[in-house]
């Protein structure tokens, strides 16, 4: 049976047939492990999964439709709420799209700060991912270690932007306001603190025999499948798919920092895990290269009060913590976009779950979905 082509009708047939040992179970939408409102309809035989159908749309807010009635600075606030753990990158995507369309060059200061903020956001996002992943696998202490360290990043954000999670700080033209004077100092303190703490993560979870048994060889995604399904970000790089937009089409200050693109070959849950841990180290390297050299200058380029993009279509791709976010903007010269399309990474990452989870156990399903690092509002928009 081709699991991918399963329709609801065939599902009901399975229920009706009452085959020995087969049953259908619903995981979600309220569930401690799905990290958002997502429903998996899972067909099981004993403890083994046969196929899985994800049902999304529980948090569909119609962001793309709303954007057609909002001006470009207003859209920034909506983009925060798509993948709220990569808020800065989402904002940056729309801002860069608008700036490239208008042909505006932002000051160097803005570029460097945007890059630093994106990398800080990436670290914070991976910290939360690690905390939640450890908790799902069963090591409940990981949750507290990850969040304890994430608090430091959120304190930095709160001082500069006033909010911990949804900042709407990067806007077309530059930044909303200048960063706090103690931003540099605090970021440097955080980097030196976190460099000592990140090995603790390895001590707690990575080398653990139970953890390795739970994750090695599980949910293998080959490179061809990753490209075919459009799985990007750390999940795709763990399969060998070299998809880092920061390397392929550099934006902001990424062309002047040196960092490695972390690739792995096995494509199983364990390598997705390792890739994210390594990415945290690389992010810290990027921040260290930039934090001492924030150029002086204005925090925004001069922009008109009402932004109208010339007629045409514009695309911008950025690398969020979870993969490639592509913003496709069609403008008819008005102050609202005609069509705003967000190609979000989690949307493509989600639908590879059926392929990965077939033949695994329920406990493995949780491990696999944790390793794909899904944030549900990003799927539904």
């Amino acid at each position, binding site marked *: 049976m081709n699991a991918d082509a399963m329709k609801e009708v065939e599902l009901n047939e399975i229920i009706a047939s009452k085959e020995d040992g087969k*049953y259908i*179970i619903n995981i979600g939408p309220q*569930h*401690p*492990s799905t990290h958002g409102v997502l429903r998996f309809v899972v067909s099981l035989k004993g*403890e083994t999964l046969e196929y899985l159908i994800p049902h999304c749309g529980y948090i569909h807010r119609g962001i793309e439709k709303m954007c057609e009635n909002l001006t470009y600075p207003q859209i920034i606030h909506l983009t925060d709420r798509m993948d709220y753990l990569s808020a800065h990158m989402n904002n940056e995507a729309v801002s860069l799209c608008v700036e490239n369309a208008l042909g505006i060059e932002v000051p160097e200061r803005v570029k460097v700060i945007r890059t630093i903020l994106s990398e800080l956001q990436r670290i914070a996002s991976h910290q939360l991912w690690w905390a939640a992943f*450890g*908790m*799902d*696998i*069963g*090591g*409940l*202490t990981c*949750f*507290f*270690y990850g969040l*304890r360290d994430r608090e430091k990043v959120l304190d930095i954000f709160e001082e500069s932007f006033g909010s911990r999670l949804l900042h709407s700080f990067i806007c077309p033209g530059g930044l909303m306001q200048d960063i706090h004077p103690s931003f540099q100092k605090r970021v440097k303190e955080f980097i030196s603190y976190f460099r000592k703490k990140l090995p603790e993560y390895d001590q*707690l*979870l990575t080398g*653990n025999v*139970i*953890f390795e*048994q*739970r994750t090695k060889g599980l949910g293998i995604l080959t490179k061809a499948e990753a490209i075919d399904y459009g799985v990007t970000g750390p999940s795709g790089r763990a399969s060998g798919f070299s998809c880092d937009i920061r390397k392929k089409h550099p934006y902001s200050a990424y062309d002047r920092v040196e960092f490695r693109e972390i690739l792995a070959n096995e494509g199983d849950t364990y390598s997705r895990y390792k890739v994210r841990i390594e990415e945290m180290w690389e992010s810290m390297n990027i921040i260290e290269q930039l934090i001492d050299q924030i150029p002086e200058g204005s925090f925004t380029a001069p922009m008109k009060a009402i932004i109208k993009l010339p007629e045409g279509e514009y695309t911008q791709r950025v690398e969020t913590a979870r993969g490639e976010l592509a913003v496709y903007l069609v403008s008819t010269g008005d102050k609202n976009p005609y069509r705003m399309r967000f190609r979000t990474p989690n949307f493509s990452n989600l639908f590879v779950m059926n392929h990965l989870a077939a033949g695994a*156990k*329920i*406990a*493995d399903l*949780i491990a696999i979905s944790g390793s794909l690092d899904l944030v549900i509002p990003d799927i539904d928009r």
Partner: protein
Amino acid sequence: MSFIYDFSSATQAIDQWLKANLSPTGAFVAELALVGLTILLAYAVIGLYLVYAERKVCAFMQNRVGPNRVGKWGLLQTMADLIKLLMKELIPIRKSDKLLFNVAPYLVIIASFLGIAAIPFAKGLHAIDFNIGVFYIMAVSSIGVIGILLAGWSSNSKYSLIGAMRSGAQVVSYELSVGLALLSVVIFSGSMQLSTIVESQANGWWILKGHLPAMISFVIFLIASTAEINRGPFDLAEAESELTAGFHTEYSGIRFAFFFLAEYMNMFIVAAMAATVFLGGWMPFHLGNLEAFNRVMDFIPPVVWFFGKTIFIIYLIMWFKWTFPRLRIDQLLTLEWKYLLPLNLLNTVVIAFLVLMGWYFK
């Protein structure tokens, strides 16, 4: 105050007083009630403070403080939780087997209660001293799994059933390892009676006297009994992050409190068994025939020794619950059937050989 060293003087005194003042049956009934009430009280108090201890230890591992508002240092936290649970509504489920649903928590509590009764808390503080003590405790703790299976089945929910099935398979498998590990000390000491086992450790604990095989047995016992009580890395029957709450999802209020309490008391029983059988029970730490050293060790009352050892083992069990991730059900069963059981059998044969040849510290 010498009775704290040997409670039998105190219990004898109470016994004689009762027999003098009441008829024989009256005295018997009074003693029954007294012992029952004492054990009930001990059960409740130990249970409450074990929950508190778990939360504090857990908080310590996770770099936070734990309950510290209700009462000094949060000591009354569990009392507050208990009162809250007592006042919660008992939500009945439609289409569940009402009798089994109601009976299941009681089975679990009864099983752990029966186990507590046979533990030697101190010299003279031993409620039931069977001559098949070890065997009795193993038998009685297996009744608990029936409660778990009934709870999962009668909840009429797929999640609960999955949790209960997993737990049933797990407990039944690990009972073998627990039994064999305990058997090793029975072979060493030659008796199943718990008081005899404790007294045979007067010149040293079995974990030291039995050198390597006893240590292997101890480790196997710890692992297997953690799996028996559905705790630590083996808690997928109630894995919160997967099945919400496993077999006791549908229970609320006092019935949930029973499951919860029974789990902690099972942990206490298991730790007490490990302390009794491997670490000497209420026996102070004696080294062979070093008289002066033994005299010093004797100063500490046996009750303190017993609880100290039990608390140490409880701390170990809590430690690796909060550190390790969870094992999957098939990995768990593989661990038992392919690794622990053969190792255990081999160990038992080695011990039998050692005892035959006398190659251990007598």
